[in-house]
């Protein structure tokens, strides 16, 4: 008789790793998204070029290649990361590149008249960005950020490539040990969906909170 409760426990351990990866990867992605997204709008040519290179590189190559590099090639350059660090790095940088375009798009979609009002009130560039543009743009970014976080969640399934015992990997282990395919894979499908639902519910709640009294921003 197969000890299912034990093996489901294994899958749950994998779920913890998956959630860790998702949370930390999202945090890194958020930082990169703002850095690169605002970088692309910079006045300085060099900053723009740097941000564009980062974005195009990470959007252009596949996450598989990036993971492999972070884990197996970086050590040759003297940087040895734990599997979790490598996973977070690759996922965060990859999703951050997509998020950067969201940041840029949202900032640019704030009407020109808001910038003009800032000039007329004599606010400096950074003041205008900090107090007027970003607070409005952030609200526009939220839904897409939610989608990006779910994309990141799904991408964690490929980290088994670098020996991280995430949920999909544990399902593979259970499958090899028990010879049963249906149970482990159905379990993780449901778990992935549950986590995705939590993310999108949380994002919508945050959006509602921030949008209070603000119909003007989201048209």
């Amino acid at each position, binding site marked *: 008789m197969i000890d299912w409760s034990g093996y489901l*426990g294994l899958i749950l351990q994998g779920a913890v790793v998956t959630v860790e990866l998702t949370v930390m990867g999202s945090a890194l992605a958020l930082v990169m998204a703002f850095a690169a997204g605002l970088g692309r709008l910079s006045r300085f040519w060099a900053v723009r070029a740097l941000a564009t290179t980062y974005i195009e590189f990470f959007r252009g190559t596949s996450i598989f290649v990036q993971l492999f590099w972070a884990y*197996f090639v970086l050590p040759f350059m003297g940087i040895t990361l734990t599997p979790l660090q490598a996973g977070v790095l690759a996922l965060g940088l990859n999703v951050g590149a997509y998020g950067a375009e969201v940041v840029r798009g949202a900032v640019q979609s704030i009407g020109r008249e808001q910038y003009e009002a800032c000039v007329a009130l004599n606010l400096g560039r950074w003041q205008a960005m900090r107090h007027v543009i970003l607070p409005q743009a952030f609200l526009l970014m939220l839904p897409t950020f939610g989608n990006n976080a779910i994309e990141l969640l799904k991408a964690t399934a490929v980290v088994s490539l670098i020996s991280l015992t995430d949920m999909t990997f544990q399902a593979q282990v259970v499958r*090899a040990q028990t010879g049963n395919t249906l149970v482990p894979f159905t379990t993780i499908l449901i778990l992935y969906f549950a986590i995705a639902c939590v993310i999108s519910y949380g994002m919508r709640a945050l959006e509602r909170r921030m949008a209070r009294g603000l119909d003007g921003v989201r048209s």
Partner: protein
Amino acid sequence: DDSKLEQLKAQGFARIAIANEPPFTAVGADGKVSGAAPDVAREVFKRLGVADVVASISEYGAMIPGLQAGRHDAVTAGLFMKPERCAAVAYSEPVLCDAEAFLLKKGNPKGFQSYADIAKDPSGTIGAPGGGTEEKLALEAGVPRDRVIVVPDGQSGLKMLQDGRIDAYSLPVLSINDLVKKANDPSLEVVAPVVGAPVYCDGAAFKKGDEALRDAFDVELAKLKESGEFAKIIEPYGFSAKAAMSTTREKLCAAK
């Protein structure tokens, strides 16, 4: 120099890579790693003064790059010794030996006994792990690339055979036996050993440059074999201690 060993002693554990392939390795429902390869490694390292091993399950393809990148201190995963591999890593003396087997449909409808048989049948397809010995043997026997299906893991291979997607699935004998046992499927048949395929043995693989550690490992491994402990560890899993003791790294690495 033994600085590597000293370092492992100091930190109290060695990191080893293992495969997700019973009975070379097994993962209990409690998550505990056992199986022939890690058990031997654990015992030898203990005798070397390294209290514990931390095992991480790894894809076959990721093992050697992981070793080279310094992610594991050793690979104990049924990675059979072959001349090219001996050039890429530093092997210990042999630990687990096994021959190759085919898993086939009942009655072996196409009559496959060797890799060459598959090469001769223009519609014959064979499944094997990517980068594994079996893939290489099949290709060397003349099976064209598009008839060698790269299968990610044993259960997938089994499933593909059951679903009629491949005609044969090749793994070491004990792995195939374990699969068949778990599948409990009377419509399958095993051909073991495959005709003309050599017997292979694996060893613990170390990074090039860690030969000192490897040599220390060999010393303790030899003692283990002599004491009969070795047989006690691996025979419950179905492996033969005699096979491992009757050959040497030198022979296996030189074999063509």
